[in-house]
């Protein structure tokens, strides 16, 4: 078996070839126009575009569509590849949502490790004042890289959970568009490659937000960064489209919207944001890209009328911020809503009680999604936009606290008086609630204009943001990994190691986030490589050291978890079909889930979360009668 049996190897080869072809094409066109043959930026840009196409052609994700254009029928192949070992399906194009879900999750964890490593590098640099081993440009590239890689990782993690779980939770055979589903995953690979490659062509040193004018003048790395984000964005759009159609058209008989497992509601709200808002980050980055490539001055303030009025005909960098944050603020709800859905999903299982206020939780997700579209301006309080815009954006932002509060009180109501089982997934859910509370309570401080002014662009923002991301995504994601690990592999992880992971990571994270907020209040600004050791009455260095040590502890915890999974995926104790005694449809079928998940269509006969109530069924299949 050669290496190129694996789709991903063919894809990467295709990506290299595409890059070379794109560069040669650029040179050819330039020679035809009578210009100098080689120009680095156009060559890399066109090369990068071609490299994405090259990857998709190489991996074989476009094969079926190319056949459609010729009118050739393409029956969907079920099961592992016939002439290759079964495990190769995870490295090639496969249309089964369970395989794609695992692909998403594993690729997401890989990126999480890359992004974490980058963070460890610059955290080590920050442990002491003065520059130890990182240059200024590299430091700047690294902080941006940490941000963007983590965003990719989170989007992949969200995609993994949604792809694996949604069809199982609603008893569907697969996603509505299996081919689009595979394409959605494979966009991520060339996207990540381009993002990492950008470090080698100058990097991009204005942070992950890529504000012009800096990004319009920075190194070539920006073009690769933009295209990498483009690829991930396309993945988001097609993935969310697929999930929405699946949720709207493939639910079984009797499963009204308010009888779906609550995670599906979270995915529904998330997908609505992803489908629409993602276009805006693409548009804003495309505009910077063409400004660099073709001189189209969207964000270039130099006017064209010169003496008459220097502003007429001039671009405006603030417009970029509007377009950019119209995606990038709702994006944080893309990151946290699925995580909060996981919390709501797991709490009733481990409390053995009905979910408190199901409808309120479901609708609060929708409310957060909708209000999330109206609050982008709170990132721009000091941008110099029209003063009167600040007040509505401030109030709209504070409004987000209401649906979020609804979720918190519903969670408390669910735990209240329950028979709580403290297994590892439940511990992570409780950790998520505690951490998200820290992030949530520091939110209004930053949403309020007068308190945002002194804290803007400080490490306080970094602390707040990491608390929302860990509480909203990382902790629930880890809970989900522990919780569904038995479903995916059929094996049980090591409970002791899981608990050790939790008890290392949670206090470490509290130290990290509160430490970051602390140094922020002392006057530490975000995105600078060095700081004044006399800040905070000379205390700042010890605080920074504490944050760094906490960061390493978190990294150790994550390694422990991965080792735990790696050890037990093949040889762990058999988990049984339903180790958590869950009512959700995916636990009523064997572990690991067979190729065709459900032997017969589901029938929904009750409410999803009636834990502890006698004779309250949720789903039945025709073959098993009742359960």
């Amino acid at each position, binding site marked *: 078996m050669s290496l190129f049996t694996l789709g991903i190897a063919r894809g990467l080869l295709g990506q290299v070839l595409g890059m070379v072809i794109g560069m040669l094409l650029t040179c050819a066109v330039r020679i035809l126009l009578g210009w100098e043959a080689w120009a680095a930026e156009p060559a890399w840009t066109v090369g990068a575009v071609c490299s994405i196409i090259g990857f998709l052609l190489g991996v074989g994700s476009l094969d079926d*569509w190319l056949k*459609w*254009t010729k*009118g050739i*029928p393409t*029956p*969907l192949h079920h099961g592992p590849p016939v002439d290759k070992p079964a495990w190769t399906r995870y490295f090639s194009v496969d249309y089964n949502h369970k395989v794609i879900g695992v692909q998403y999750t594993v690729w997401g964890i890989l990126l999480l490790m890359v992004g974490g490593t980058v963070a460890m590098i610059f955290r080590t640099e920050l442990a002491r004042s003065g520059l130890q081993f990182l240059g200024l440009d590299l430091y700047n590239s690294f902080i941006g890289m940490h941000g963007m890689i983590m965003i990719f990782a989170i989007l992949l993690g969200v995609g993994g959970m949604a792809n694996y779980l949604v069809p199982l939770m609603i008893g569907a*055979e*697969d996603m*509505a*568009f*299996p081919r*689009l589903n595979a*394409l959605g995953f494979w966009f991520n690979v060339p996207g990540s490659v381009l993002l990492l490659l950008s470090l080698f062509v100058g990097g991009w040193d204005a942070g992950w937000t890529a504000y012009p004018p800096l990004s319009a003048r920075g190194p070539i790395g920006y073009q690769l960064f933009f295209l990498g984000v*483009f690829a991930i*964005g*396309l993945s988001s*759009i*097609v993935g969310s*489209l*697929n999930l*929405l*159609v699946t949720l*709207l*058209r*493939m639910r079984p008989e009797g499963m009204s919207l308010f009888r779906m497992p609550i995670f599906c509601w979270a995915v529904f709200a998330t997908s609505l944001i992803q*489908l*629409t*808002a*993602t*276009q*805006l*980050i*693409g*548009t*804003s980055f*495309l*505009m910077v890209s*063409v*400004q660099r490539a*073709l*001189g*189209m*001055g*969207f964000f270039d303030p130099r*006017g*064209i*009328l010169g003496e*008459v*009025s220097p502003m*007429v*005909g*001039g*671009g*405006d960098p603030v*417009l970029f911020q*509007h*377009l950019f944050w*119209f995606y990038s603020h709702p994006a944080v709800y893309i990151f946290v809503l699925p995580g909060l859905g996981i919390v709501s999903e797991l709490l009733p299982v481990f409390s053995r009680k009905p979910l408190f206020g199901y409808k309120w939780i479901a609708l609060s997700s929708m409310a957060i999604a909708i209000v999330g579209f109206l609050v982008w301006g709170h990132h721009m309080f000091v941008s110099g936009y029209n003063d009167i815009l600040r007040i509505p954006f401030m109030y709209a932002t504070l409004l987000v606290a209401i649906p979020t509060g609804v979720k918190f009180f519903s969670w408390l109501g669910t735990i209240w008086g329950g028979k709580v089982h403290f297994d590892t997934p439940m511990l992570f859910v409780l950790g998520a609630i505690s951490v998200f509370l820290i992030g949530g309570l520091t939110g209004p401080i930053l949403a309020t204009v007068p308190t945002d002014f002194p804290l803007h662009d400080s490490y306080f923002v970094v602390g707040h943001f990491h608390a929302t991301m860990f509480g909203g995504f990382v902790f629930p994601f880890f809970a989900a990994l522990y919780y569904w690990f038995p479903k995916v592999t059929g094996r049980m992880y090591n409970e002791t190691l899981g608990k050790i992971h939790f008890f290392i990571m949670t206090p470490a994270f509290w130290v990290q986030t509160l430490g970051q907020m602390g140094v922020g209040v002392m006057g530490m600004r975000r995105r600078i490589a060095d700081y004044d050791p006399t800040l905070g009455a000379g205390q700042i260095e010890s605080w920074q050291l504490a944050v760094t040590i906490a960061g390493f502890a978190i990294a150790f915890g994550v390694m422990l978890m991965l080792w735990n999974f790696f050890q037990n995926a093949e040889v762990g104790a058999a988990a049984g079909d339903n180790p958590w005694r869950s009512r959700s449809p995916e636990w009523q079928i064997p572990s690991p889930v067979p190729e065709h998940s459900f032997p017969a*269509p589901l029938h929904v006969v009750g409410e999803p979360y009636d834990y502890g109530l006698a004779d309250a069924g949720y789903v039945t299949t025709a073959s098993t009668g009742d359960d």
Partner: protein
Amino acid sequence: MTATAIEHGPEHGHAADDHHHAGESGLATYLENTRRNRLGMWLFFASEAFLFLALLVTRFYLWRGPHGEVVRPELDQFAGLVVTAVLLLSSYFMNRAEVSIANDKRTDFLTSLLITAFLGTAFLVGVVVWEWGMFPGIVKGHLKPTDGVFGAVVFGMTGMHALHVLSGVILILNVWWLGRKGHFSGERHWGVEACAIYWHYVDLVWIFFYPAIYLIGTTIDVPH
């Protein structure tokens, strides 16, 4: 974001489709799949709408005169009107093609498709040669992409729209070629419908772009 490559391509009219529920008849599965495809297509439109809305917002944000009034550059009004009429006419023929295949009138269907593709190409030529002045030997354009925000927005909006027109023409020609080979029928023609609503969507975008670029605001002289 240019997601033009993502539409669900034309489906083979006669071939057996993926059976999600083996017990159902072929046509029922086809209809259910078509309903899913249609919803997917409309969600794709909703997504793309945000791209075009962002461009419209950019236009009204950036095209401001010295006193903040809405302005526009002097463009060839005749060219604008002609390409708009051409695109509108193409939309009519696309509709005619769809109605024809639904009634199993293949010749009419194929002719209408070809006319649509021709008119779409004419629109592209009109924009690229006439408005952009890509070939200064034939027509000299009014603006260059580098003419401040006026050049940037005109070329940004018409360029993004032209990309969609181009992909639409390719799609139409593909459907025409498949139709000539005997694909699609009155009962099964999701491929044609997808192509048709995509083409109408491209027309719909132009319905809003045309007044935004050519009609709204007072004209301002753009020095080169």
